[in-house]
């Protein structure tokens, strides 16, 4: 059976700090607004929703206790619509879509709302603890903070500070252009308060006034940690041929910390017919891959190869790529590895400009790709994200 994508919505992305617009909004509400929009735009009876599958990375505090189910209840979904919250770190949002697609394709489910949420301003990244970096695991795995991994990629692949800064600048330019030309209109739903006042209707992390000069002045964010606290040395245990790690990443060429949520409506052909929905695309291929957790961010490469190979496609068959801009060196690595033209990669701007609300980003990227394919009359897109712990995820969608 085929899994169809019927709709994709997202909130705008607010700065993920206490000065961000969405800081005053509960994450469950961000997600509930997306669930409401998917329901209302498509006139579905939520009693037919087999599951609400949501990605969320830091599942504690406001985001604890299975936020997917809570959001479904808050959004007034039928009590019969259950919910599950999953965590594949930065791949969670796309994992949710893939999971939904798998359930539909298998015939077990007919209609699933997938997506994700992350309020990074309210629930601090890493505040859920975990064993990944406790001493015993650390001594076994030797993982380092991901910024150092990103710098290691830049070092090994020869990306200079200028390369990553130029990439960041272009991300800002593209995101600014996307907003100017209203490319996100179909997906973005404003976040409003109890009285209907708009709290945020536009991505607020974008900095249209970014200059190369300005970026050049920013201090590398991980140099001190790497050099003074020996984390570079630890990384060099696994990469001993690297004499010095070149620290090139900073806040201006890494993904923005933001708040946001997204939802994607995935269903069978029959579900679409039931509610009179026109499918927009199919989920053609999904893949996961694992890679070395120290360099951590190379997962998109094997995941992409796997996703392509499964359906007999080649990199040249893809019209549009969304490669999550966790750090500039990740999409640069992707382009270098596959020889893909920059024009095809993140053409609407990426997380460096728009932000990366961890659990939601994958679903947002899928919506962005879908909108762009439709606007340009193109057919296929590949969405991929690097993931903590050294994983990668990729999804290929094709318009119908």
């Amino acid at each position, binding site marked *: 059976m085929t899994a169809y994508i019927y709709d994709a919505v997202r909130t705008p992305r607010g700065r993920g700090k206490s000065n961000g617009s969405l800081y005053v909004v509960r994450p469950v509400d961000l997600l509930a607004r997306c669930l409401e929009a998917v329901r209302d735009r498509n006139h579905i009876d939520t009693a037919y929703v087999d599951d609400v599958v949501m990605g969320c990375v830091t599942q504690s505090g406001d985001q604890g206790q299975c936020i997917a189910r809570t959001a479904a209840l808050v959004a007034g979904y039928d009590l019969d619509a259950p919910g599950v919250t999953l965590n594949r770190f930065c791949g969670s949002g796309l994992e949710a879509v893939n999971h939904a697609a798998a359930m539909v394709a298998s015939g077990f489910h007919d209609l699933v709302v997938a997506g994700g949420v992350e309020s990074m301003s309210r629930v*601090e990244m*890493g*505040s859920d*603890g975990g064993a990944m*970096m*406790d*001493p*015993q695991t*650390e*001594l076994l795995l*030797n993982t*380092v903070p991901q910024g150092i991994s990103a710098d290691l990629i830049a070092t090994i692949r020869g990306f200079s500070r200028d390369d990553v800064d130029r990439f960041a600048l272009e991300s800002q330019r593209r995101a600014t252009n996307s907003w100017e030309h209203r490319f996100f209109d179909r997906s973005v739903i404003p976040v409003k308060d109890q009285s209907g006042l708009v709290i945020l209707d536009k991505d607020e992390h974008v900095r249209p006034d970014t200059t190369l000069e300005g970026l050049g002045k920013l201090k590398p964010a991980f140099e001190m940690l790497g050099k003074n*606290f*020996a*984390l570079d*040395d*630890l990384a*060099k*245990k696994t990469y*001993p*041929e*690297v*004499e*010095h790690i070149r620290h090139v990443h900073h806040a201006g060429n890494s993904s923005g910390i933001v708040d946001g949520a997204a939802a994607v409506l995935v269903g069978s052909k029959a579900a679409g017919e039931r509610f009179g929905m026109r499918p927009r695309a199919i989920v053609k291929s999904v893949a996961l891959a694992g890679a070395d957790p120290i360099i951590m961010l190379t997962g998109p490469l094997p995941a992409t190869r796997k996703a392509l190979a499964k359906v007999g496609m080649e990199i040249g068959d893809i019209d549009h790529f969304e490669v999550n801009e966790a750090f500039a060196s990740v999409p640069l690595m992707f382009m270098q590895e596959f020889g893909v033209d920059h024009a095809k990669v993140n053409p609407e701007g990426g997380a460096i400009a728009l932000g990366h609300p961890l659990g939601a980003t994958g679903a947002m990227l899928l919506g962005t790709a879908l909108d762009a394919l439709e606007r340009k009359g193109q057919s296929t897109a590949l969405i991929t994200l690097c993931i903590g712990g050294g994983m990668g995820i990729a999804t290929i969608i094709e318009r119908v």
Partner: protein
Amino acid sequence: MTTHKNAAFECSFEAESGIATLLLAMEGKTNKVDRTFAEGLVDAIAWAKSQAGLKGVILGTAHKNFCVGADIDSLYPMRDPQATFDYVKGLNGIFRSLETMGVPVVGALTGSALGGGYELALATHRRFAIDDPGVQIGLPEVSLGVIPGAGGTQRLPRIVGVQKALEHITQGQPVRAPKAKQLGMVDELFPDRDTLYAAAKAWILANPKAKQPWDDKGFKFPAPAPTSQDARNIFMVACAMLYKKVGNTMPQVEAAICAIQEGSVLEFERGLEVESRWFVKCAISDTSKDMIRTFWYHRNAALKAEGLPALGAGEDMGIQKVTILGAGMMGAGLAFICADKGLTVVLKDINEAQLAAGRKHCEAELAKKKHLSAEARASLLGRITFTLETAPIAGSDLIIEAVVENDEVKHAVTRELEPLLSARGIWASNTSAIPITHLAKASAKTDRFIGLHFFSPVEVMPLLEIIRGEATSDETVARCLAFTKLLGKVPIVVNDGYGFFTSRVFGTYLMEAVQLVAEGHDPVLVEQAAKQVGMVVPPLKVFDEVTLKLGHHGILQRERYLGQNVSDIPGVKLLKTLVEQHQRLGKAHGAGFYDYPQAGAGERRIWPGLAALVAAKPAKTGIAYIADRLMYIQVLEVARCLEEGILRDKRDAEVGAIFGIGFAPSSGGPLAWMDRRGVANVVAKLDAFAAEDPASAASARWKAPELLRKMAAAGGENGRFWPRA
């Protein structure tokens, strides 16, 4: 006053105050943690509790030290995990019963409290110490390959916080009482025993409900909370810093970090269990056996000069006035440490600027001695005569020659100045390689001519390699050993031969690194490999510091003394090329294997020009291969020194390699390193290296000595250097 006594404690109870005093008073003037101690403590606690009207307990010592920790003789043979676990579990139960006995307990640290001794103090409610830098406090367990096993990793973090506890426990360096107070490891300091005991009594009476913080319902961990992001970062960085320092060669330090973190998030008593499980893993390990053998048994034997010529009973070493010839860093350092020990010192040079630099060095060293009074400083410096003249030397009991490494210069200096020695005066050369017997040719009193090879920086390096020339007398050796003891150095006594012991082995280490580079192995990997096997200094970096110029000089000198032509060896060729054609003379000259940018302009980097001077990258390379080469070449040289009789005692191989040249400390030394791998396997590996070595024909670099082949053939206990622990 009621009294009671057992094999470990002298107990007394003062009915008026209701205070019981339990004094550790073990046989042999040293209180240590063993079964006698444990049984004694159980008995003492029970006795105290049986006293009617008991209001509190002072836990102190009848000896100089409070308690110096675990009895190593009982620890060393422990190999059975269950028995070891039961032992520490029992000990923890006793300490727990002390801190929960229902009355306040004060630890009276009138002397040093180390290891299990300090853990005992941690199980009291209040730690009072004497304000004396001679009182040492702390948890040095990791230096013997284990971790604190009687609650140290659980109580200390709960008292001083995870950051300080981590630093203290992972470094394994005891601190002086004032510093312990500053860190919160003791609560208060007192000028003497009487005031301390009076304060202890007062504190007991003022705090009748005292209990441990962790037994308080509202207990809060000192910030940062162990589950906080800050604490998580501290632990992550601790792992990284440890790796940077010693690679993964110190499993016991890793275990300490794990025990602290994993126990800190649990209820206290279960935290103790976590510690016990980590302790057992370390205590029964080969690492701890090898470290204990070398850092405890061998080091102590060396410090006591066991098996070496000794002065007669009551005999004085007869060294009061010392002259140091040459005011370089070594000479000036020597002058300083001698003056620091109360000797009268003459520091002589022929160059005014050098002499001034020597004085400056001494003044800088003096500035580091923060605990000295103004008078003590003045008198220390006043004991050194800085001079360009020879007259002040007259009457010296010891002259240590530290002039340039040139036998002609050394001969000339000996001829000129030896007559100025006092009647029984000793002439010592600080040469790092030139045979003492050869240098003694210029001496009129060869029985009092000796090699005293100090290591740089001499204020810090613990080893002194004493070299006997052919004619050096036992008496001269004995007097020099007494001098070594005065300086607080660890001695090894070796026989004469070019490079003696340490320089020979260290030379192979450095030259093998150069050889590897010449063969086309990545120099960055060479440095990494050395770290990963636990070598204290990376070879190319330290070669730059020693200076390539000196290494080059050493090669030429070695060829001259040994009559060997080594110029065909690729590593030797590379070194010669670097020095002779590219002026890569070493760090001091701004250019060696590394480029040295101006301060603040980035890190040192391998000189890019090196690539053009070496072979193409070999097929067989990588960290593991390179590390093997660096280690096997050293242990091979050690075996040769043993076979040739340069080493007169196996102990000196371990002590000399570890304390002199930074051979991987956790191995216990080169002989233990071979034992760990099996001598037969070592020989097989050496043969394999010989077969593949491009320079093998020219130098027989990898030829295994007969000594090793015989041991390999013998197998069993005869195939080992040390009995299996």
